[in-house]
């Protein structure tokens, strides 16, 4: 290792935290060769890098695993390049590996240059500016209501025949009201000394059909809240979607 190289390697080590991985170190080292990246001596670069790793070890600096993997690989590449090719060996040739490493370095350098050009562009909010006093689009929503003659007649029929007839459009057989739930629960809650699942208060025959089950669950829950509000009941749920449990609230407690 030449003096220049050693000085360079030491400078690198001081700044080892500032590197963005082994490729970054290689790119920095390659600059000491002062040649076009395509003409770089990979052999020399491998030596420089290994020197850098050695030096770091000597200084007891911890290098991340990535750096050591790269060192091992460069050592392998170095031996590949120095020894005459073994025709029986499989895999890419030393030249192919060198070409790809050179490509990687050149590409990384190109991306860095591109990044610098990008960041150096005129930028919104720094060099050029958007409208300071934007005018919002005001949304005007007009709601028009509509009804048909049929709606009207059915409505009237519903009122006039409420005591006699049931208008056939009213399909409410799958609705369990909160009043019904309250009526059902009031006599039962006296027995709920321990925490009991809400679903056990649901009426018979309302479990299987999903529409009816939904209605009954909602009304039973609403009725429970009402009873809690009235101070007859305590309610709890241990977690989101966990079963809801009820317990009688002892008077005066």
């Amino acid at each position, binding site marked *: 290792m030449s003096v220049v190289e050693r000085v360079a390697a030491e400078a690198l080590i001081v700044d080892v935290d500032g590197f963005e991985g082994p490729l970054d170190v290689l790119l920095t080292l390659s600059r000491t060769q002062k040649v076009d990246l395509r003409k770089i001596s990979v052999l020399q670069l491998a030596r420089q890098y290994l020197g850098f790793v050695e030096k770091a070890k000597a200084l007891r600096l911890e290098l991340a695993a990535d750096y050591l993997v790269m060192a091992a690989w460069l050592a392998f590449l170095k031996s590949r390049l120095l020894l005459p090719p073994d025709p029986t060996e499989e895999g890419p040739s030393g030249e192919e590996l060198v070409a790809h490493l050179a490509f990687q370095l050149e590409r990384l350098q190109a991306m860095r240059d591109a990044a610098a050009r990008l960041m150096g562009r005129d930028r919104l909010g720094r060099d050029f*500016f958007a409208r300071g006093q934007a005018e*919002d689009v005001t949304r005007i929503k007009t*709601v*028009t*209501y509509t*009804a048909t*003659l049929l709606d009207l007649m059915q409505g009237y029929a519903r009122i006039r025949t409420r005591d006699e007839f049931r208008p056939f459009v009213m399909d409410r057989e799958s609705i369990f009201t909160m009043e019904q739930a309250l*009526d*059902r629960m009031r006599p039962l809650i006296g027995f709920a000394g321990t925490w009991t699942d809400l679903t056990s208060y649901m009426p018979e025959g309302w479990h299987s059909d999903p529409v009816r089950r939904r209605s009954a669950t909602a009304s039973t829950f609403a009725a429970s809240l009402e009873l809690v509000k009235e101070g007859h009941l305590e309610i709890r749920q241990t977690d989101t979607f966990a079963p809801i449990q009820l317990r009688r609230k002892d008077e005066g407690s």
Partner: protein
Amino acid sequence: MTEESAAETQSESLFQAPPMGEQERMVEAVLFASAEPVSVRDLEARMPHGCDAAEALVRLRKRYDGRGVQVLKVGDAWAIRTAPDLGFLMQKETVETRKLSRAAIETLAIIAYHQPVTRAEIEEIRGVSVSRGTVDQLLEMEWIRFGRRKMTPGRPVTFVVTPEFLDHFGLESARDLPGLKELRSAGLLENRLPPSALPTVGDGEDDDEEIGAGQPELFED
């Protein structure tokens, strides 16, 4: 003296104000980017030394004459604003059609069938009170209007349906509304009898029928 005046000229040219065209560009950019109107003084504080913001404003204002935006004086300051005739572009109108609520339909039906009818009468027929919002909505839609006051104690106002109502429902007059018998024969009413007694909840599968009867009020608005 000569030396001094020479120095003055030099410093003047050094700090010479940009040409008026440039000053106009500057004022344009500042008025555009500023979050609030900018006064002439503030403009000149931002612009290079020696600028005449007032003059640049006059020119800029002329340039925007008749354009989609205008340079306007707001109090003591200046701003760029949308031309008044293009204000419609800053609005987005959406029309949403909703079905009239059940309470409104029932109220409307009672008015149509019983007009002129007072609020108390409507409430008596419906069996529930009529909310002010419902009546207001129907008034606003111009489907009902106030009729003559009843000659009864308190002289209550009455409601009647409007020509707009007849027009919407395709009726010649409110008398053309079908009667109960016709409704029944048209199949709008079912002759099913309501359950004789209020069933107890949880009797099992028979509790299907009882709900229609006293129910609707729950859904009142």
